[in-house]
């Protein structure tokens, strides 16, 4: 996906991301390009994620035995807690920390802003997956698709907070303004999370307690099931990291396209003004070289398609 984007070049003045160690160029030499190390990392993580998920599926569906009480339903346990771990702790924690680092003047960099944005967006996907997989488990077990239990409710509340953050991000603004706003929103939401959590725990609870990370740190399941569960955690974490890397990259390209849009529109208007159909003698000398224009027009359009 990314390789098709970086081959296109255009020569206008675009603001790139000089703060980012993994990106080269992006100023006037065309879109920011990933360094080889970054490309390699993304690929390795992606392949590892695919392999991990494949193994989890194989172990979870064929190797492990059905549970005595829950039967085949127990197989959801290899996915659901892992997805929830990513959504509730990893993604949101990363978004909160990255937002704080953005707000802290000494570490202020658009890198943290984009990282937070990527973490939130991927976190939303995982959060929805948590709710769906939990719902699939809840229907046969509890007899309802949705129960107003503490964990479900706080997971849903977290989703809504995440979605609010994304809505705020969608408001058009300069990258720095948007970054500050979003970071504050993430901070306020993060502060709210423990309060929301306690309030819904006190409100009602009937969800089963933590299985792996219980008070004694001794898992209450064992054998192949425990290993599959653990592998599921690792595989889903890898999936998260891979999605995070790709989303981050798209964020950089989005900002690059956004910052170049006005330049591009101006040049297109200029190009119309000097087009041959009207008497060429009256026209001012053309500022941009004619050969550049088509390339300049094409490149961002393609990026825009990729980034959507």
């Amino acid at each position, binding site marked *: 996906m990314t390789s098709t984007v970086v081959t296109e070049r255009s020569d206008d003045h675009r603001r790139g991301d000089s703060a980012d160690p993994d990106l080269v160029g992006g100023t006037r030499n065309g879109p920011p390009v990933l360094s080889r190390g970054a490309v390699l990392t993304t690929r390795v993580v992606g392949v590892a994620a695919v392999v991990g998920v494949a193994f989890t599926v194989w172990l979870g569906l064929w190797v492990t035995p059905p549970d005595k009480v829950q039967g085949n339903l127990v197989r959801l346990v290899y996915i659901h807690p892992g997805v929830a771990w990513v959504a509730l702790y990893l993604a949101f924690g990363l978004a909160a920390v990255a937002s704080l680092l953005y707000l802290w003047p000494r570490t202020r960099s658009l890198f943290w802003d984009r990282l937070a944005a990527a973490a939130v967006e991927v976190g939303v996907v995982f959060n929805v997956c948590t709710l769906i997989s939990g719902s699939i488990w809840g229907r046969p077990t509890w007899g309802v698709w949705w129960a107003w239990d503490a964990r479900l409710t706080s997971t849903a*509340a977290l989703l809504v907070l995440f979605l*609010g953050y994304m809505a705020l991000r969608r408001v058009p603004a300069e990258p720095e303004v948007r970054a500050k706003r979003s970071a504050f929103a993430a901070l306020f939401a993060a502060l709210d999370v423990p309060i929301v959590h306690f309030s819904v725990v006190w409100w009602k609870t009937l969800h089963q307690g933590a299985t792996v990370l219980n008070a004694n740190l001794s898992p209450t399941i064992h054998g192949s099931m425990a290993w599959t569960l653990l592998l599921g955690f690792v595989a889903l974490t890898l999936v998260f990291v891979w999605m995070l890397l790709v989303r981050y990259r798209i964020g950089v390209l989005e900002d690059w396209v956004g910052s170049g849009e006005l330049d591009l529109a101006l040049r297109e208007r200029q190009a119309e003004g000097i087009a041959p159909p009207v008497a060429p003698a009256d026209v001012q000398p053309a500022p941009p070289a004619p050969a550049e224009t088509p390339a300049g027009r094409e490149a961002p359009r393609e990026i825009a398609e990729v980034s959507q």
Partner: protein
Amino acid sequence: MWRDAALVAGKDLRIEARSKVALSQVAPFGVVALGLFAFALGPDRAPMVSGAPGLFWVAVLFSTVLAIQRSVSVESADGARDGLRLSGLDPAGLFLGKALAVAAQLVVLELVLTVGVVLLYGAAVKTVWLIAVACLLGTVGLAAAGTLYGALSAGIRVRETLLPFLLLPVVTPILLAGTRIWQAGLAGGTPSDATPWLHLLLAFDAVYLAVGVVVYGPIQEAT
């Protein structure tokens, strides 16, 4: 800081005293919401009485959104926001002042709604002080969090639609806690029933007041 807060709160309340937007639009909206809830729950008294605490707080939450919108829009015309920033007032004082003005209006609104709940739903208040404390603590939290989010969305054109979506999920704990304390208050429960919820409200208030005092200045610069 406190002097600045009093100045700003006085300004906002004076604007309200002259324009009467909260009195003639926000408070009536709250009463209309109470009426709608009554229609939704049917003419029987029982569901209305049992739902009264929650319905009261939902009405308060919705009205809060309107009050915050108003509090922000007061500053949005004629470059008033820039004027405030140029005035040299302490941002912390500004935050406290804006929040105080909203809180004052919300207290009046809650009085109106309490009377409405008692009269329209037939709910009987048994432990008055519990209900009063819940309202006060809830109001402080709503005003603080609301003012923060109001400032965050101040420069945004889609503020009217964005603010409720951002604010309402954040203040859900106030709805939960307020409702539970009200339930205890209406049932004549002992204070111990409500203690954890009162602590929760206190924590919410403390967190958002503290954050507001610290970050209101940077937020103003950001938007």
